[in-house]
């Protein structure tokens, strides 16, 4: 018998990894130069969570999938044009600041409040998904804080696999030190799962899925509530690019034997 799940994926938007980033400090604190015009993508690990969630929902008929995303409305709309073509979901947007410098606790408070207010969401069936770290702040705490605020005390981070059983319990593989996975069994929802890479490739774009999603995404964006994030006593003493630039020696004229000898000597040196 299939289990009916209510899966909520928290996913932010981040600058395309190929972009060069430069920090600037404005009246509201640090940010990125030209942040609003940098091409953006869905946060990579959170995207893995979305694809895993879609597959899980598809395997369990009657399940529902929401994507909760906090960011500037215009950027959200831009990113959703692509993401909406990947898998079917209902977007719950929150119009707020972009970037990695706002406080994670403030972000979590807004997300938890938003999730708790989703119409029709049964928290007893809730699997809260997201990336185990973002590509912006990279703190790995937001999802955990959202879970705590929602009273969920079964949490897993660095998840690469979940196997749902017929009785609603599930096995979960979490990354731990030394290239190993910890295997746990949880009796069932509610639970928080912060995903690492998972096992699924990025789905191909499906224009039909995209069109169906956009019918609900555009009205949701139009109605997105505006969120202001508190600083919570956090201040930035300095924000800078790493200055270390190495003097690279480019070796073009050595034979493989000569290079190998040089490398072996280097490897053996303390």
């Amino acid at each position, binding site marked *: 018998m299939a289990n009916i799940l209510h899966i909520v994926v928290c996913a932010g938007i981040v*600058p395309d990894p*190929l972009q060069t*980033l430069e*920090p600037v400090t404005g009246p509201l604190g*640090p940010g990125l130069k030209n942040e609003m015009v940098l091409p953006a993508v869905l946060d990579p690990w959170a995207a893995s969570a979305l694809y895993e969630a879609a597959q899980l929902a598809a395997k369990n008929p009657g399940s529902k999938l929401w994507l909760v995303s906090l960011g500037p409305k215009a950027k959200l709309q831009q990113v959703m044009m692509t993401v909406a073509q990947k898998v079917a979901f209902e977007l719950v947007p929150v119009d707020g600041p972009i970037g*990695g*410098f706002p*406080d994670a*606790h403030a972000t979590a408070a807004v997300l938890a409040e938003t999730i708790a207010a989703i119409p029709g969401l049964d928290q007893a069936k809730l699997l809260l998904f997201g990336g185990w770290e973002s*590509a*912006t702040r*990279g*703190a*790995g*705490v937001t999802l955990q*804080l959202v*879970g705590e*605020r929602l009273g969920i*005390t*079964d*949490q*897993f981070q*660095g998840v*690469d696999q979940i196997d749902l059983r017929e009785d609603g319990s599930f*096995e979960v593989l*979490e*990354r*731990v*030190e*030394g*290239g*190993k*996975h*910890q*295997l*746990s*069994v949880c009796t069932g929802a509610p639970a928080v799962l912060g995903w690492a*890479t998972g096992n699924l*490739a990025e789905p191909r774009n499906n224009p039909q899925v995209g069109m169906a999603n956009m019918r609900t995404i555009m009205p949701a964006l139009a109605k997105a509530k505006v969120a202001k994030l508190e600083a*919570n*006593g*956090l*201040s*930035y*003493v300095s924000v*800078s690019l790493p200055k270390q630039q*190495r*003097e*690279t*020696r*480019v*070796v*073009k004229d050595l034979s*493989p034997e000569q*290079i*190998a*000898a040089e*490398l072996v000597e*280097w*490897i053996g040196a303390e």
Partner: protein
Amino acid sequence: MEKILVLTHADESGSALSKASLEAVTAGLELATRLNVPLTIGIVAVNSAIASATLAETGAQLLTVSGEAFAQARYASDAAAVEALCRAAEATIVLAPGTSRFTRVTAGVAHRLGGFIDTHITALGGTETVEASRWFYRQRIEAAISRTTRPWFLLLDAGTHAAFAGAAGAAQVEAIAVELPALRTTVSGFRAPAQDAQTIRPDAKMLFVAGAGWTKKQPDGQTHAAEAGKLILGFLGATGASLGSSKSLVDQGGEGEPVLPFLTHMNQIGQTGSTPRHAKGLSTCCHGEEPHVVGWRFIGSRRAISLDPNCGWTRGKADVVYVADAFQVMAKVNALLEAKG
């Protein structure tokens, strides 16, 4: 006045402290000395006797949470243990190692105590205040932060402090009782590659990074994935190096291209992978920003083998770039290493 608590936990033995915990102890001792404030150390272990004895020389107040329930690293029980230690210590600053065990629970505990948390801390500075350094945007931007709110939890990255090493002795310990919630999760074990197939070695001196070029067509028009795998594993076997990979090479498995069967996403370094710490790094057949900028931010001495003399990502990032065919070079390297025994 600040009051500092260092949280520690046992390693897989259940009794000895993990290396990352001992590093956090060093950080705590340094901070307490600089601020001239008291230090408390909290221990989570099945049996805390050995761990307590290890910390006797610190002179810190020792609080312990012990019992079979804490043999397993699981959110509900670990959060309860850490919460109990924090409430008992009444600390304003809580330092903890950024291990998978504490990373899973510490933010939740900070919320329970009305506190705040920052993670991936690489250094603690400041003069009269506490400033913490960490990276943003996957090791692309460095920042120093401070907070006025307390308690302030700081998770320290592994390898940023020396591990505390003191002579074992008798220590006075205060056992803290924990009221466990209903436990719905059971840890049933670990999954790891066989010992000879384990290519991720966090304690290795060297990181070997394999890029997508290893499985691309070579000058003879053919791919040589099997030969590439043999060369890479031969090098890892001879040197004990840890294996990192670019995302593009790992992703090839899902795209029907030739693959190196021993690679998984856990080998991946960079934006969606790890940023390991090793003394040396050798990258081969990598032609992108990820391995060179993000993936080996914390690698000491760096060399690269690349066919592209103009690869912009190695310039300024590697100490030496050899413009050569990695297949030929690594075959010779392996032969030399084998001859050396």
